[in-house]
C-alpha cells in the first residue's frame, strides 16, 4: 500500500476500498447479523475513511487498525441510532447459485453459513464484537484490546470462551 496519497487520492482510495471492502462488510455482517446494516455500515465506514484519509498516522498503527476503528465506531453509532429497535435480518433473496458447485453443495454451504450466523446471534454484545473483529478484520488481540479498553489476555480469554460456546451452540443447532 503506497503511503503518499497526495497526488491522486481518488484512485488510491478506490484501490483501498477494493482491497478492504469484503473484510469490512464481513465484520459488519458478523457483528450485526443483518445484510442491510452491513451494507450501511460498510458504506459509512468508507465514507468516513475517505474524509479522514489524510489524518491517518502510520506511527500510531496500521491501516487495518485505523479502518476497523472507524468501522467499530460506525457500528456503535448505528446501534445508538437504532436502539431499542430490534434488528431483523433482511436475507430475503437467495444467494446467486454457483453453477460450478452445483445446487446440493450450494445448499449445504448456505445452510452451514446460516447456522453459523444463528450461532453468532447467541453471543453477548461484547463477545460478538471481539469475535467479529478477530475473525473478520484480522486485527490482533492487542489492537482489539486497545480499541475496546481490554487487556490483551482478556481479549484472548473472551475469544476462547466465545468460540467454545459458539461451537456448542452450533452443534445444538446442527442437531
Amino acid at each position, binding site marked *: 500500500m503506497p503511503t503518499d496519497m497526495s497526488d491522486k487520492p481518488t484512485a488510491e482510495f478506490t484501490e483501498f476500498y477494493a482491497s478492504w471492502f469484503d473484510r469490512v*462488510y464481513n465484520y459488519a455482517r458478523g457483528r450485526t447479523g443483518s445484510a442491510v446494516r*452491513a451494507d450501511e455500515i460498510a458504506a459509512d465506514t468508507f465514507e468516513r475513511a475517505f474524509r479522514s484519509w489524510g489524518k491517518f498516522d502510520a506511527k500510531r498503527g496500521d491501516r487495518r487498525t485505523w479502518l476497523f476503528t472507524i468501522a467499530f465506531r460506525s457500528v456503535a453509532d448505528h446501534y445508538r441510532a437504532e436502539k431499542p429497535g430490534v434488528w431483523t435480518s*433482511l436475507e430475503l*433473496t437467495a444467494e446467486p*447459485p454457483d453453477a460450478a458447485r452445483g445446487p446440493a453443495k450450494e445448499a449445504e454451504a448456505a445452510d452451514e453459513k446460516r447456522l453459523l450466523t444463528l450461532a453468532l446471534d447467541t453471543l453477548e454484545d461484547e463477545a460478538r464484537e471481539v469475535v467479529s473483529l478477530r475473525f473478520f478484520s484480522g486485527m490482533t488481540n492487542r489492537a482489539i484490546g486497545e480499541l475496546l479498553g481490554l487487556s490483551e489476555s482478556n481479549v484472548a480469554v473472551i475469544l476462547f470462551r466465545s*468460540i467454545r460456546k459458539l*461451537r456448542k451452540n452450533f452443534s445444538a443447532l446442527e442437531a
Partner: protein
Amino acid sequence: MDDIMEAERFDTELEKILAGRPVAGDVSPELAADLAFAARLAALDYSGESRMKYPAKLKILAKAEENRLRSLLRRVGVRPLVLAAASLALILAPFFMSWIASDRFEQGALSLFAPRPAAGMFHGNGGYMFGSGGSPYENGSNGIAQGGAIGGAGDIITPLNPRDPSALSYLGSAGIKKAKTGEPKYGDALRGSASRAASAPEPQSAPLDREGYAFTEENPFQKVVDHPLSTFSIDVDAASYSNTRRILNESRMPPADAVRIEEFINYFHYDYPEPQGEHPFSITTELAACPWNAKHKLVRVGLKGKSIATKDLPPNNLVFLIDSSGSMLSAERLPLIKKGLRLLVEQLRKEDHISIVAYAGSAGLVLPATSGAKKEEILAALDRLEAGGSTAGGAGIQLAYMVAGENFIPKGNNRVILATDGDFNVGVTSDGELTRLIEEKREHGVFLTVLGVGRDNVQDHTMEQLADKGNGNYAYLDDIAEAQKVLVKEMGGTLVAIAKDVKIQVEFNPAKAQAYKLIGYENRMLAAEDFNNDKKDAGELGAGHTVTALYEIVPAGAEDESLPPVDELKYQAPRPAAGAVGGTELLTVKFRYKKPDGKKSMLISRPLADENRDWSLASADFKFAASAAGFGMMLRASKTRGDLGYDKVRTMAREGLGKDEDGYRAEMIRLIAKAELLDKAPEPSK
C-alpha cells in the same frame, strides 16, 4: 488459570488458522474441536451478499473529490489542469471498478491479506447486482437471457420470462411460439422461477394487443323498490384517464374496458370546501336535471380530504420498488419513472426516508433507507438503475415490504411505491399469495402505491388490483407532466392517507325516485351489508384529494323506456306509498370511514332534498364532472347515454372549464375532439 492457559494456547493456534497455516498436532481433542470450529468461522464470507460492493458511493466520493480539487485550485487559478485531473479521476473510476469486479481480483491478485484458510467454502463470486448489463434481448440467444451480473465468477443466467413482452417479440421473430425457459441446472432458486414461468398462463394469441383490461359491465339502472340501497367503495385513482389519453394521443380508440368512468371524473380537481369539525373530509351534494336525458336528474356527491401543508405532513418512509426488467427499457418506462421520482426526491425533507428496491431476475436493495437530506445519494442510486433481465415481482414486493417494515415510522406515512409496466411474473409467490401479502402489510400500516407506465402491454388490471388490495392508489404515467402531477402536485394526497376504508351508501326514497344508476365505480361495488362490516376493505382518501360520484336518477312517476318492465310481485306486501316517510328528501348519503390507523369505522349521514333545477344552473365543477363522465360514456359506447354526443360533452366541458390553472381541463376538450375524429373514422382494414 487453566482457562487462561488454554485460551493462550488456543490463541497461538488461531493465529495460524487465520494466517492459513496448519495447526499443531499435539492439542487436546477438545481444543482441536474448538480450532476446527474456528476454521469454519474464519472461512465465513458474507461479502457476496453485499449489494453495494461496487456502489455509486465511489462516484459520489470521486465527485466530492473533484469539487474539493476544483475549489482548491480555483483559488490558485489553474483551471484547465483541474478539469483534466478531475475528469481523469472520474473516467478512471468505472474502469477501476470493473477491474475490481473481474476474476483477477477474485483470485486475490489485489488482496493484501494472507491467503484465506483453505476450507474452500467461502463464496468466490462477486456482488449480485443488476443494472450493469445492457438489454438481454439485444444480445440474448437460445431463449436464455444473460442477467446483468457484475462479479465475474458466476454470471447469472436468467430464464426468459414468457410473460415479458420484449422476450416475446424476440422469440416471435424467430418463429417460436412458446418461450423456452431455463433448465433446472441453474440451481434451486432459478429452477423454481423457471418452472413457475413455464406454468404461467400462455400469452394472449394476438401479439399486437397485449394490454390487459378486465371486462367491466356498465352499472345498470336499478329500481328503487327492489334495490333501495346503492353501496360502493371510493376510488381516487385516475390511471384510466391518463392511460386513455396516451392511447388517444397514439391516434387509437381506447378499448372500452380501459375506460373507468369514475377515474375520468376523479382525474380532475374540484373546488370542494375544506372540512370543518371532527371529520377529516367535507361532503358536497348537488342536484340538477340530467344533461343527456331531460326526464332524468343528475346528482353529484363530492368528498374532499383535509389538506395538509407539506411542512406538517407526517414523515415519509417510502420504499420505491422499481421494475428494472428488460421490458422497462424504452424511454416511456424506466427513464420516465426515474425522471418522475427525481421530481419527487426534490420535494423530500430531511425527516423523510427513501429506500430503493429494484427487481429484475432477482430482487435487490439498491439504496437502504436514506434521509431526504441526502438528495445526491438518492439521485445517484436512481441513476444507477438500468433495465435488464426478467421480472420477479413477487420477490421484489416482499423485499420492499421488509425494508418498509424495518424503517417503519409510527404515525408516519409508510408506503411502498411500485413502479412497473405491470407485466408481472410474480416469482416466489402465486397471485393469491401476493395479494395476501399486500393485504397483511396493509393491516400493519404499510400501504401501496402503484405507478403504471408503458404501452402495448399495460397490465392495467393487475396493477389496479394490487393497489386496491394495498389500500393504495394507482396512477398511470404517460409523460413527465403526468409524473409531475402525480408525484409533485398531488404528493400529499397521493401519499398520505387521512381516512381509509371509505364507503358510500346511498338510500333512495321510493317516493321521489323510481330508479337510479351509479355512473362508473363498476369494480368498486359492494353488497349492501358490506357497508356496516368493518372487516370489508374499501378505498382510502388522501390529504387534499377529492372524490366525486354521479348518480343518474329516474324521478318517481316518469315514464321511462330505460327500465325493463317486470311483472308486479304477487307475494310481497305492498310497498309504502309515496310520501309516507322522508318528506321531500330524494336520498340520503351515508359515509363510513376509518382513521388511517383505526379499526372501527365512523358514520356520517347527509340527506339531499329533491328539487327541480335546470342544468344551466349547475356549478362549473358539476358541469365539468358530468362532461368527464359523458366523455367516458362515449368512449365506452354506453347504452344509457341518452341523447349524448361528443358535441354535448364538449359543450359541458367548455361551460365547466372554470379557472383551469393547470390546463388539465382544456386538455380534455382537445382529447374529446380527437376521440370524435377517431370514432368517426372507418376502422383500419385488418
